[in-house]
């Protein structure tokens, strides 16, 4: 059996991103005359997948509690060997970025990590765009000799899914038997205030905050406005904030509606983790700090003074309402 131009999307627990990837796959499949398959690793309503763009949905059963990525990869690889799609897409989540390379190695094919854009050519060749060298460049990568061509896609970079109410598709339930060598013995959910990657507002502090106590203050403000606190690496290194708050190349990447950078200079290593934010405000006492160029709005001055003043007016406003 020869390889088709079909596109497989491996859905990994975050329905919002999975549906966006399915819609993207649908528009790409139209270009290369392929079909879209949603392969869901968790229990979900297949109707959504179909309306978002899937022609067929495979609901894999028995994986919910499985923490062995290699075993999941083996199961996926055998499905892929049977069906031979031209393209396989994963979410660039921690799990996706573990399972996908294992699948790629099992199929002896190429994989592009953490893509921020995909484009399908008529021939079925996938152009995969990913940032490299700290986002200073964008590399366009192809896997031109082998199939399937595989990519993980950074969650949140794609447009929201478009739903077509009248679409129909086939649904199959596929039970998977797994002999797991890795077992899960516990799980500690992150506190919601720690879910930086999901936050709509982030107030991030740098070395300019000057102390752990300063970060406590930022946290208080974040709680008031329903946001999360982030930090630069230099602030983490200084012991002002825990590593889980670190944003940037060696921390996490975020994309909130509003990012408030306080006492952060704007090193490229930090910028790559936050410059996809919708709106960026910089608070810095140095009007020449690089971060200002990357911000939409800037307030120049002592951060503590600015935020204390603002906090007063903010509370007043709430009292008025």
């Amino acid at each position, binding site marked *: 059996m020869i390889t088709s131009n079909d596109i497989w999307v491996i859905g990994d627990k975050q329905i919002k991103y999975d549906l966006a990837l399915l819609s993207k796959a649908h528009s790409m499949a139209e270009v290369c005359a392929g079909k879209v398959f949603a392969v869901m690793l968790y229990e979900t309503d297949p109707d959504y997948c179909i309306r978002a763009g899937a022609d067929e949905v495979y609901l894999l059963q028995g994986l919910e509690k499985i*923490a*062995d*990525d*290699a075993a999941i990869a083996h199961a996926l690889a055998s499905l892929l060997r049977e069906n031979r799609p031209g393209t396989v897409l994963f979410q660039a*989540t*921690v799990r996706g*970025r*573990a399972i996908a*390379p294992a699948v*790629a*190695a*099992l199929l002896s*094919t*190429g*994989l592009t*990590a*953490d893509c921020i854009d995909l484009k399908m050519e008529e021939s079925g060749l996938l152009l995969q765009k990913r*940032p*490299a*060298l*700290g986002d*200073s*460049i*964008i590399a366009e*990568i*192809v*896997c*031109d000799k*082998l199939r399937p061509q595989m990519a993980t896609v950074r969650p949140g970079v794609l447009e929201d899914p478009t739903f077509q109410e009248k679409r129909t598709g086939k649904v199959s339930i596929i039970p998977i038997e797994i002999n797991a*060598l*890795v*077992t*899960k*013995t516990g799980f*500690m959910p*992150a506190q919601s205030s720690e879910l930086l990657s999901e936050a*709509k*507002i982030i107030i991030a502090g740098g070395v300019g905050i000057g102390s752990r106590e300063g970060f406590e203050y930022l946290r208080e403000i974040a709680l008031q*406005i*329903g946001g999360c606190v982030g930090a630069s690496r230099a602030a983490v290194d200084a012991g002002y904030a825990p*590593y889980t708050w670190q944003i940037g*190349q*060696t921390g996490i990447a975020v994309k909130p509606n*509003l990012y*408030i950078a306080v006492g952060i200079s704007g090193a*490229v*290593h930090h910028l790559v983790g936050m410059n996809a934010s919708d*709106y960026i*405000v910089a*608070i810095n006492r140095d009007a020449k700090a690089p971060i200002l*160029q*990357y*911000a*939409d*709005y*800037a*307030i*120049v001055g002592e951060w503590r003074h600015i935020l204390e003043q*603002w906090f007063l*007016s903010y509370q007043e406003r709430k009292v008025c309402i």
Partner: protein
Amino acid sequence: MNIIVCIKLVPSVMNLTMDQEYVMQRDRVVQVINPADEAALEAALRLKGNGSVTVITMGKPSGDDELRSLLARGVDRAVLITDKAFAGADTYATARTLSVAVNSLGNNLEDFDLILCGRRAIDGETGQVPPELAILLKLPFVTNITKINFNQGKIVCSRRLEEGIEELELGTPAILSLCEYSYPLRLATILGLQKARRMQIITLSREMLGLKKEECGLKGSPTRVRRITGQPQGIRNVTIAKNIDEGIARLSELIAEVPL
């Protein structure tokens, strides 16, 4: 416990140049140990007990100094896999070369209890090598680890996911990839430095590993960089508040605009 640590030497500056084939020109930049690999190494040094720690790195021939600085920290053996033919390797070609090297080090895999890697390298930032290596060596693996312990011969580890921390258990041998800063790397001692100066660094070439040219480097890589574009660095049209009062008012407006 016998442990292999995969270390990548990465450029310390970000303004690298590339040649026409988009292979990184690593000749003129200072190399440092990839931050996450430092954590893997420290974890290995703590876990080894009466066993040994072997460091392997695939890279340019001048990695000698960096490897010696690792030997000085208590590493028992350092292996440099270097050959012109390895240049331009993508993650799959890298994993393949590393897997062959690992197999050539011991008589068989049972000689090693653990292979530790970094969760990702700061230059390529893929994190794909550890799972690919695991598959090629037919070993179980866990990525993104922040803590490793042993309990009754089993590995007990914590893995950081977006939604929280997972506690996992698995047997040996296995491949684990560690998060940067999870184990801050110890300093070299003077005694260690003296010892390291006398130690031999094992160098392996393509021929010694019995790899064909088509299996490594750019030629052995399924993926290819077709084009590189300078990223518009995200420069925005900043408005600077005329004074702090104006800034404060605008900040409140902006916060109010964000949907809950």
